[in-house]
């Protein structure tokens, strides 16, 4: 099968417990061949466990993992056609960059010249050809990440698993690397599952995003769709920064009891004729935009995202108008979208 047509993953009621802690609880998830799926969720939500189970580094208590329709439950990790980039890269500290790249090829007894040719090709592709003689601790965080990626490429896997690959990079580098990672994925066409707790990564990197919490999948879909139509209050609160304003029904956003109404900070407009009256408690000027933290008469706090230099200061009274088309309704009891 050509790349792009292989590497379809299906998780069926996958459950994993560590003692009394349920890391994954009946997870069903499908990753299409060639797709880049981002797993996002808070710490302890089970994201990394999903990766480890797919890689075969851990075994599920219940459920099945199918790759291209085949149950890989009894397939050892190195026969799964899976490559993983670990969070802190797991480069072998006693080996040079070149030897790190050659490690797997040597284990698989690839002939010496062939192995060197492939290692150099992977290094060229990721722009680390001039680092081959260095040891990992003589390279920067960004370079180490490239070495880890190159090492993963050399396995020519059907599936790439990336465990928070950008977490140890500083902000500007993360921004640049995000774009490169995406380009590399488009170029290779390999199925990729990428774990992050960073929202910007989740929104920008994946074809689809799966939101996990407490070992359960809360929602799967294209990032913008998940952002626009969160399936429940957890997703609504988790994706987006600052998070969605969630107000119990019959409060300042209207609605009836038994409902929770949600509105994103950018869907609250400042306007003299707005129905909601609030006092500005803090102004966070971020340069390109301003975040207003306000409080209504009944104590409800609303966050407002507005343009730069809005001309309001702390303590001033403002009127806010929620965009009626962008109002979200959730069941107060279950938290599900209605």
């Amino acid at each position, binding site marked *: 099968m050509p790349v792009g047509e292989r590497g379809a993953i299906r998780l069926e009621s996958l459950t994993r417990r560590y003692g009394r802690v349920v890391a994954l609880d009946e997870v069903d998830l499908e990753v299409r061949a060639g797709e880049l799926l981002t797993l996002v969720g808070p710490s302890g939500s089970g994201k990394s466990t999903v990766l480890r189970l797919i890689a075969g*580094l851990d075994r599920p208590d219940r459920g099945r993992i199918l790759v291209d329709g085949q149950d890989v439950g009894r397939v050892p990790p190195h026969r799964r056609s899976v*490559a*993983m980039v670990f969070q802190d890269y*797991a480069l*072998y500290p*006693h080996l040079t960059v070149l030897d790190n790249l050659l490690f797997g090829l040597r284990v*698989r007894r690839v002939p010496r010249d062939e192995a060197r040719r492939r290692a150099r090709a992977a290094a060229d592709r990721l722009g680390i050809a001039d680092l081959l003689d260095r*040891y990992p601790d003589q390279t920067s965080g960004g370079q180490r990440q490239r070495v880890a990626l190159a*090492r993963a490429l050399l396995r020519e896997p059907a599936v790439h698993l990336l465990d928070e690959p950008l977490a140890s990079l500083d902000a500007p580098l993360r921004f640049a690397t995000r774009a490169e990672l995406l380009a590399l994925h488009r170029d290779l066409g390999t199925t990729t599952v990428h774990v992050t707790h960073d929202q910007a990564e989740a929104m920008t990197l994946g074809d689809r995003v799966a939101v996990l919490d407490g070992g359960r999948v809360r929602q799967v879909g294209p990032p913008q769709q998940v952002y626009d139509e969160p399936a429940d209050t957890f997703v609504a609160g988790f994706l987006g920064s600052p998070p969605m304003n969630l107000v119990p029904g019959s409060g300042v956003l209207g609605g009836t009891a038994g409902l929770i109404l949600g509105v994103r900070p950018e869907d609250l407009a400042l306007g003299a004729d707005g129905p909601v009256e609030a006092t500005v408690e803090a102004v966070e000027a971020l340069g390109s935009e301003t975040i207003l933290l306000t409080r209504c008469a009944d104590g409800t706090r609303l966050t407002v995202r507005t343009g730069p230099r809005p001309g309001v200061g702390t303590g001033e009274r403002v009127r806010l108008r929620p965009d009626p088309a962008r109002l979200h309704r959730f069941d107060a009891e279950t938290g599900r979208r209605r």
Partner: protein
Amino acid sequence: MTSGRARPALTAWAFLAPYAVAVGLLIVLPGLLTLGYAFTDHTGLTRDPQFVGLANLRRLLSDEFLLDSVRASAFHLALAVPLRLLAAVGLGLLLAAPRPGGRWFRVAVYLPTVIPDVALAVLFLWVLNPLYGPLNQVLGLVGHPGFTWLSDPATARVAVALMLAFPIGEGFIVVLAARRMLDGRLYEAAVLEGCGPFGQLRRLTLPLLAPVLLLLAVRDTILTLQVNFVPAYILTDGRPANATLYLPVYIFDQAFEFSGFAYGALITTVLMVATAAVITALLLVVRRWRVLR
């Protein structure tokens, strides 16, 4: 500015001073005295030792017992150091992973180190007894007639090395701790590449532990050349046929029983030079084989 920089240095020297004084009084001074006595006629009781030039050295060069002693020590070194390292590293790696009952095994490995050498040697007198000792009985189970361990030159040397393969607690603890500090993710990455348990040992564990192993090898070389005194004294008293007349035993015999301090001091110097030579050779091999990066 200068005083600001000088003060921390002064503080450092102040903290080091007690140690420096102890090293000076207990190691450097006796070391220099030993070297000096080697060229005198000091017996230990002489009130006014006289310088005798190279007389002791001339005697040393024609001393056949010394040759036996060096041979015994070299054999012991070649057998005991690898044996002790293998035991410490093997058991350390085996018992590093948490597993049920692991702590009892770890205690069992450390226990012989707590036992005084003399007691362990007396215990080994029983273990090695050709008539009722358990070692020969175990050999009997596989149809072997057993050895007269301590009365045959070859087996006596093996017996002493065997006994010293038990008190390996410190090396064991060091390996255990070092193995536990290695990042588990490196092993997961290797498993994904198809690296099996022996591949992981060869490609990850041993190279990553190389600095620790080298340290243990150097330490064990120094130790092994010295600690065989007690077992040799109790098990064989240097016999049979001088097979266990290790350098420390010979030094003791010469210094306190036969020739006095001066000749003992000269052989002690030989032991120190030999130890330094072995360690230098070891470090050269390590550099040559690029064991350390």
